């Protein structure tokens, strides 16, 4: 039985990952040039993961040796673990939370992604450049990880769950903006679970005056970007979902 994936699929995913890396890199540049709001740590990590995964799919594209990537993703995992800790302890001692409303899910999600990358580097035996087809996606897991399947399965579920959650949350944020736009009288009575009861101060500036076009400028985490932003918020969500799927594919091949 053929345990590996087809090479053309690996090339396809490599191109997609490079596109994500370039897009995220572009966001970083654009945010600096035009002072656009971005989530810096996410975009930096997406650039790194995009490059690293492209190299995993097609080894010739790998800009760094595996050891260097292991160091990089160890640092990334440590960073997000630290941010989780700070965020959680802030909640415990009743300090103001991170200004990011979805920090509770954003930090662990990217921490898990970094750990999954580490697992893939540790699980896949290092191959010299130029070895035909010697990528994670075309040759499967090493003998050391062949029987160690619980962790990749866990990563798989968490990553795909994260992609699903992100898609739903982006749409919820958009709907919430539209609902805010509705006049009070047009809201039907009933337990409006997703809106009623939200602190009014959080909606400052987002009352009936907000336009549909402006609402559409919400990014995946519910923050508002300028109406003329050159950083389409939906693409950030798409990048995350695509990255989760690509990483899941690699993990499936390694199962």
């Amino acid at each position, binding site marked *: *039985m*053929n345990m590996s*994936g*087809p090479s053309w*699929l690996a090339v396809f995913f490599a191109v997609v990952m490079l596109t994500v890396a370039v897009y995220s890199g572009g966001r970083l540049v654009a945010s*600096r040039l035009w*002072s*656009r*709001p*971005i*989530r*810096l*740590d996410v975009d930096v990590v997406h650039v790194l993961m995009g490059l690293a995964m492209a190299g995993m799919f097609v080894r010739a594209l790998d800009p760094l040796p595996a050891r260097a990537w292991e160091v990089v993703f160890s640092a990334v995992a440590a960073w997000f673990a630290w941010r989780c800790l700070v965020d959680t302890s802030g909640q415990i001692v009743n300090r103001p939370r*991170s*200004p*990011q*409303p*979805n920090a509770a899910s954003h930090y662990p999600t990217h921490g898990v992604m970094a750990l999954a990358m580490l697992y893939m580097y540790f699980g896949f035996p290092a191959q010299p450049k130029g070895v035909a087809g010697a990528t994670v996606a075309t040759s*499967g897991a090493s003998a050391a990880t*062949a*029987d160690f*399947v619980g962790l990749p*399965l866990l990563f798989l579920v968490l990553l*795909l*769950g994260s*992609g*699903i*959650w992100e898609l*739903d*949350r982006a*749409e*919820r*944020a958009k*709907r*919430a903006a539209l*609902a*805010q736009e509705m006049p009070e009288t047009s809201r039907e009575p*009933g*337990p*409006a*679970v*997703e*809106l009623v009861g*939200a602190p009014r101060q*959080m*909606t400052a500036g*987002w009352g009936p005056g907000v336009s549909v076009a402006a609402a559409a400028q*919400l990014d995946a*985490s*519910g*923050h*508002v*970007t*300028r109406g003329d932003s050159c950083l389409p918020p939906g693409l950030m969500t798409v990048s995350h979902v695509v990255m989760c*799927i690509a990483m*899941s*594919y690699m993990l*499936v*091949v390694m*199962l």
Partner: protein
Amino acid sequence: MSGVMGVYAPVAARPLVATGSRPSARRTLQLALALIWLLDGVLQLQGFFFTKAFGSQMITMTAAGNPWFIARPISLSGAMIAQHAVLADSAFALLQIAIGLGMAWRPTLKAALAASIAWSLGVWWIGEGFGGIFNGTANPVNGAPGAVILYALLAVLLWPRDVAVPDCTFAASMTIGTRGARALWSLLWGSLAYFAVAGANSSAQGLHDLITSMASGEPAWLASLDRDVAGLVAHQGTILTTSIAILLAIVACGVYLPRRPGNITIGFAVVLALLFWVIGQNFGALFTNSATDVNSGPLLILLAAAFWRPVRRRPDVPDAVSPQPRGSLS
């Protein structure tokens, strides 16, 4: 760049109210179903499915023992898939990924659910030979009556409604009402009870043979677990399958009981589904590099969650009374 790492730059950035909110229980179930579809799509990208063996062996194999009018289309489809293995598998994977993502993105939820029903019914026939119910090999322990039909059932039960159903007491009852949902639950679990003791399943060595056959291709620890469990159930098949059938029948009737005992039977259902998934299905054979789906265990658990009756009388907010645009929520 203004702002520090991990923090939004302050320029024109404000948090919005709904980002901290959570989806409803019903929406959470839809998202769980979406996750399973997405996982299935990624599993379909495994190397084995791009080979001729997928069509000529895996698909064609399901025709064996079925009546000719069921077997013939399976054989034809298997041959066609084998001839165009790469194209066919790419399309299958893409469709399943699209269904998963479509369920997660609310504007395409209904389309994705409809597609999932159509796809499930097709695969139930062509890919699973109706779960072996016509050739006497159906056994709930290893996934009968076919995991894929459970996707269709869940899609029906979780279909978004624009009009509130007055008597809904659990998430699954919001689409077709409490009576209809209970009838479907009883039909499913009642059929599982029947198949547990049907044919050779209730023989003294039936359960032993089934579990032993699962060990092939699994990681060493799982194969070892299979062998150990098979040893424990050797020659105990009749009494064990009868006990399983009785438990399944209790679960089938449990939805008609009052809330508390009813929920206890839902708990039984979850335990049984977990046991089936681990022992009889080896986690859906995910570790064999030839699994197309997660098998029935997780889907039965998801179904059980949809029938769980919470303390409050109204488990969920009907789609139509939320402030979102009519006809487009969840």
